[in-house]
């Protein structure tokens, strides 16, 4: 299943954990053609959740949490026609990072007609934690991306919400097409920056969290994304108690993005809302059933 190659070059120093994965289509199914891991990151044995040929991988952090100055590097490539579902085994936990920050850098490349569903568990940043997540996605215009994220308030032992220092979750989606000037274009730049303790700004107030504790995001990029889909997902989201909004990006290289943002008071509610959307897309676009990861 996996081939042996040299470790990908570390960006700065030695990462605490590294994971590289390349998935290709072989005879109607998606298989891993390259798999590498090192340090405190690994994947569970891949599996097929249904008969669609979509490969499922679960990322695991055996250390249980990210600490200060920890760097995690993840590199994922889905080759032409292949389909990958990437999840995590449990919540990503960030512990105290005094004078420093934990960081995850993720690079994703999606080939022609490739499909990636990225559905990690929620992110929990504890007291005095700082975390940066930098995700760079490069897509062929015909590829398909579904990416979700839930950020929790990270309760302190005293029961205080938002006692962490800083969370930065920045994702860039670039469409690579020979038909575009410069060979590609930036489709979406999603920059979530929460600094609960910065000066006069009140992240709990109007305009920011608005009295709610959890933030959920869903980004879908696909040539089939249109206003009608936005209406469908808007209606699905509206059936939940969360405060949500949906909008479309500009079209770049013939493909379009849909961003859904939701504020809620619980991880469970956001999980149901996001699952409702992903189930709709799985059925509507691929004839697949709802995701059942059997872990909740």
């Amino acid at each position, binding site marked *: 299943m996996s081939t042996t190659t040299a470790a990908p070059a570390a960006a700065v120093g030695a990462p605490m954990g590294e994971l590289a994965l390349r998935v290709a289509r072989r005879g109607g199914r998606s298989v891993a053609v390259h798999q590498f891991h090192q340090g405190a990151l690994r994947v569970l044995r891949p599996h097929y959740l249904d008969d669609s040929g979509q490969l499922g991988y679960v990322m695991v952090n055996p250390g249980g949490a990210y600490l200060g100055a920890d760097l995690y590097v993840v590199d994922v490539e889905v080759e032409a026609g292949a389909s990958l579902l990437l999840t995590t085994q449990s919540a990503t936990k960030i512990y105290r990072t005094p004078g420093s920050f934990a960081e995850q850098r993720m690079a994703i490349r999606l080939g022609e007609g490739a499909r990636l569903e990225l559905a990690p568990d929620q992110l929990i940043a504890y007291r005095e934690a700082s975390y940066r997540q930098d995700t760079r996605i490069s897509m062929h215009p015909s590829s398909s991306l579904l990416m979700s994220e839930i950020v929790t308030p990270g309760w302190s032992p005293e029961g205080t919400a938002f006692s962490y220092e800083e969370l930065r979750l920045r994702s860039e989606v670039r469409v690579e097409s020979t038909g575009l*000037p410069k060979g590609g274009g930036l489709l979406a*730049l999603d920059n979530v*920056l929460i600094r609960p303790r910065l000066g006069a700004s009140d992240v709990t107030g109007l305009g920011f*969290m608005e009295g709610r504790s959890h933030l959920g995001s869903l980004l879908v990029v696909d040539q089939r994304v249109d206003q009608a889909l936005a209406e469908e997902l808007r209606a699905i989201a509206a059936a939940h108690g969360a405060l949500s909004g949906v*909008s479309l990006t500009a079209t770049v290289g013939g493909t379009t993005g849909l961003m859904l943002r939701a*504020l809620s008071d619980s991880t469970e509610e956001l999980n149901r809302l996001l699952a409702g959307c992903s189930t709709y897309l799985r059925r509507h676009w691929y004839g697949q059933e709802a995701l059942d990861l059997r872990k909740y």
Partner: protein
Amino acid sequence: MPNTPTSRRLALQQLTDSALPTGAFAHSFGFESYMERGLVHDEASFGTWLAAFLGQQLTYSDALAIRFVYDGAPLAELDEQLSAQLLPRQVREASIKMGGRLLGIGAEVFPSPELEAYRALVTTGRAAGHQPLAFAVVARSLGVPLEEALAAYLFAAVTSLTQNAVRAIPLGQNAGQRLLRAAHDGVAAAVERAGTLTPDDFGAISPGLEISQMRHEKQRARMFMS
């Protein structure tokens, strides 16, 4: 045109006057959604929204974009980043619509090679033409110092939003003036903040503001285009 402190001041005043026909009267940038939810309904509640919008979205997108133009960052790249980070469609379209008007006015009254270069990117489809970038290019070509340009741009945005609130909520004219006076500190803080933020901060979202801007697309009765 002679370049003196007085000529620069007059140019800046014309560029940021609420009579400048960019169509700012047609945009609430999401406060109309808060009106529908009953959260913005009087002077105090609009002031709360205005302070949040100024300190968050206007600072992290518009003000920072203007500073990057002054820093010499490539316009095509900044333009592309603005289009990609303004995720609520109506807000992105408002920035482009008002930017297009400003580019046209600027070409007639404050022409410069820099402005022509940006207009050329827009007419050839290599840039969308965003309002803060059009403003920054013109202000910089006129020799307006960054801090003055930022303060003028932000206060112009706050002024048109307040005028829109006076009509829409409605508020008294004097309430509008009190809101503008109260926004002085927020504008000064935003100018200072914009000087210290980094490219990583560019376009940082404010979830509540963003969701309201997205929900405006489906609002039934509305006065504004955003």
